[in-house]
């Protein structure tokens, strides 16, 4: 009936359609890596290359190779350290902040509501709102005169409500709130997925073992969520280190440069100052920092 040919002689067409595992792997990975090379690797190499030059377009200067001079300058650059400090501060606040808020949202969204879609939609909406507009909206919320926050404070009886965006501390707080609001959503999404994979029987076992709700949360939920938490943290940390749109729209780095982040500084150096060499240096530095942080995470996962 289905007699195969007595000798197994695949046609060229069949061979083409049936590559070996290794060839197939190469074929399947090729597009991804081609794109990465084009969109990421080449630009990064360009940046690294540029960072070795004095390349100030508006200085009318021709590119002049300066070796590591740009990096040496970077170490002396107060603005860079201040931006780095702000970036790290924002990261240090918003990453745990988003984790806590996201966890809360995920736990609440995981309750067996009768009608689940409004909750789910509410959970996902912040994530779907374009980042640059989130900044605008929150800048509006925190506006001294016309913002909702101060309006509420006044209604609560405050005479002179704070000028949120005109103070480094309050400004950073407002920025962090906006960032946490925006990013806790995706965090919650990942955690919610993680939550749903914890077998109910573990809670039942703990219940029988005598654990209270609180103990169950710390002894079961948190450790079981750890893989999801780590994934979420990695993504969140990488994006936190790149924070740009929200402070850019909310405070523009003001007052002075006190709320400027690294990405804003790099943007300013490259686009406003047209200082490509130094901007590239700052970008490479930022990349190295991201790399260190991620490596630290990965090390930790490796240990688990």
């Amino acid at each position, binding site marked *: 009936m289905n007699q195969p040919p007595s000798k197994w002689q695949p046609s060229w067409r069949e061979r083409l359609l049936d590559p070996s595992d290794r060839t197939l792997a190469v074929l399947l990975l090729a597009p991804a890596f081609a794109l990465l090379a084009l969109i990421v690797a080449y630009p990064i190499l360009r940046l690294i290359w540029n960072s070795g030059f004095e390349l100030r377009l508006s200085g009318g200067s021709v590119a002049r190779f300066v070796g590591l001079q740009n990096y040496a300058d970077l170490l002396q650059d107060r603005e860079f350290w201040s931006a780095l400090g702000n970036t790290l501060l924002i990261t240090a606040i918003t990453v745990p902040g988003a984790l806590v808020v996201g966890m809360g949202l995920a736990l609440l969204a995981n309750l067996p509501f009768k009608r689940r879609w409004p909750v789910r939609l509410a959970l996902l909406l912040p994530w779907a709102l374009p980042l640059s507009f989130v900044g605008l909206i929150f800048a509006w919320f925190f506006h001294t005169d016309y913002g909702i926050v101060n309006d509420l404070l006044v209604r609560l009886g405050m005479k002179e409500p704070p000028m949120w965006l005109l103070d480094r501390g309050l400004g950073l707080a407002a920025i962090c709130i906006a960032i946490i609001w925006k990013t806790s959503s995706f965090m919650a999404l990942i955690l919610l997925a993680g939550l749903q994979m914890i*077998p109910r*029987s*573990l809670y*039942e*076992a*703990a*219940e*029988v*073992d*005598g*654990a*209270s709700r609180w*103990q169950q949360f710390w*002894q*079961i939920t948190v*450790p*079981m969520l*750890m893989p999801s938490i780590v994934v979420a943290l990695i993504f969140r940390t990488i994006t936190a280190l790149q924070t740009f749109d929200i402070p850019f729209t909310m405070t523009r780095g003001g007052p002075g440069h006190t709320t400027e982040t690294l990405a804003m500084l790099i943007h300013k150096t490259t686009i406003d100052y047209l200082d490509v060499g130094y901007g590239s240096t700052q970008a490479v530095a930022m990349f190295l920092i991201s790399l260190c942080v991620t490596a630290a995470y990965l090390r930790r996962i490796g240990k688990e």
Partner: protein
Amino acid sequence: MAAIELRQVRKSYDGRVPIIHGIDLEVRQGEFVVFVGPSGCGKSTLLRMIAGLETISGGEILIDGEVVNERPPRARDIAMVFQDYALYPHKTLFENMAFGLRLRKTPEAEVQRRVGEVAALLRIEHMLQRKPRELSGGQRQRVAIGRAIVRQPKVFLFDEPLSNLDAQLRNEMRAEIKRLHQRLGATIVYVTHDQTEAMTLADRICVLQGGHKMQFDTPEAVYNRPAAQFVAGFTGAPPMNLLRCTVQDGQAELGQGVRLALPANLRGHSGTQVLGVRPENLTLEPRPDADLQLQGRLSLIEPLGAETLLTVQVGEHELVARVGADFHGQSGQALTLHLASAQLHLFDANDGRALRSA
């Protein structure tokens, strides 16, 4: 005083059709009770209600004489072993077992001692520092049991603890649980749908079907005096042969002219009934007590090594007989099956009730 008592316990999941229809049950102190029944009959639900993991829709559950309807699981002093073990994947075996003790603020020395003892009992001392995923199924099961034992609760609940294990391991663990029970003298309620487990482990078996208690008796009684056709068909491997027949004048007419005389205690019923006979009660050789015979034709031979299963076509019915390993014959040959009228069972064709002297 009963260790566990169920009084007219009912359950329905929020407003839907009831799952458990008013069950009364008493489990004595130190008794090993097994719930058996087909999938979906409500075994787990009942067990979980005892544990406090499901709310009780009606009736009362008493543990040690106290109504516990409103108590959360942790206040019931029970331990439970789950089908999928439900070990905490992120804790070591030691911590898995110690968890319940720690929650009760047991002094560390005591924790060490008790976990150590139980681990020794279950032969898992050498792997206390491992995580559950580094264990085989049988080892995990042991840890799950250890976790239950270590707390020394009033009552143990087991929900199909062996069903994820392979046959060999299942046998071993079964013996282990039996030994544990004898040793600890604990009160145990055990859910399974494996009848070998039920038969070997139970002091008493509670057979459930569709949320009803069908029979609650010793394994011997359940096996030899099934209270209902359902129970008869559920026990024994292979299970009892059940033959629809018409009973009249103390004779069961099996169709195609095959008749069997009923013993005295089964007479007095008439109409359509179901006649039952266990495979091991059908023999090829005459024996002193075998006062009846059936002629048939051999349709399938399954040698199992220690014994052989024969499927025999008798009239329109197929009967399975369980004979010695030394059987030699071949498919299609004619056979005479000998059976004793005293080993016949009769069930009402409508409601499945076992019929005895009318």
